């Protein structure tokens, strides 16, 4: 999502993910320290959709991420309608969303890993609710 945002809206037409090679402007890059297989504490922005979804301003999540938003381009997460709505305890962006859209959320962690039968993750509950509304 961040590469698409950079290419289409921010105007960084050669934006890329370093996993695809060295050419272009790297927007998503290898983390200095892999988070794969770890739990992270996230702080969620006030008045965000994500805060409404969680009903809280903090959460603990699991992640498999080896990549993150390149710090030199962190400002793109706050441009053209995108909002950085969660950061980890190092200050790195862990979630973004758009306020001008029915439901447009990206996480740099994996909420599906903590979903259980009878206890779905709140992001998936909210997403499925949005899907039901969209279909009508």
């Amino acid at each position, binding site marked *: *999502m961040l*590469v*698409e945002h950079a*290419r*289409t809206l921010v105007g960084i037409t050669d934006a890329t*993910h370093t*996993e*695809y090679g060295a050419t272009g402007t790297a927007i998503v890059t290898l983390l200095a320290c892999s988070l794969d297989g770890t739990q992270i504490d996230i702080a969620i922005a006030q008045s965000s959709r994500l805060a409404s979804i969680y009903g809280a301003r903090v959460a603990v999540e699991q992640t*498999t991420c080896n*990549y993150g938003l390149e710090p030199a381009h962190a400002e793109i997460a706050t441009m053209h309608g995108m909002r950085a709505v969660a950061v980890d305890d190092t200050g790195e962006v862990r979630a973004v969303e*758009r306020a001008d*859209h*029915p*439901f*447009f*959320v*990206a*996480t740099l*962690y*994996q*909420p*599906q*890993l903590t*979903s*259980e*039968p*009878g*206890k*779905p*993750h709140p*992001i*998936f*509950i909210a*997403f*499925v609710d*949005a*899907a*039901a509304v*969209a*279909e009508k």
Partner: protein
Amino acid sequence: MPTITVLIDSPPTARYHAATVNALGHAIDERDDRDSFTIDVVHTDAISTIGDAVVIGPGTPYNDPRAAEAVITSARERGVPLVAT
């Protein structure tokens, strides 16, 4: 009858593929209209149309990153709910 497109390239046996589809199922199972939902799992190099909502699953590099970006652009411009993990 909402159709949710799950764009993911890893095989169904992969942990994150299964976790993504299962998480959708957990949320759908809590609803009275659970039987109306369809989950359509598609690889990035096979996507043609998207459903009423889209999940961009984990697992870069994608088979077709430009197709994944096109799906994101379309969902954003058309107001189709999207979650990317």
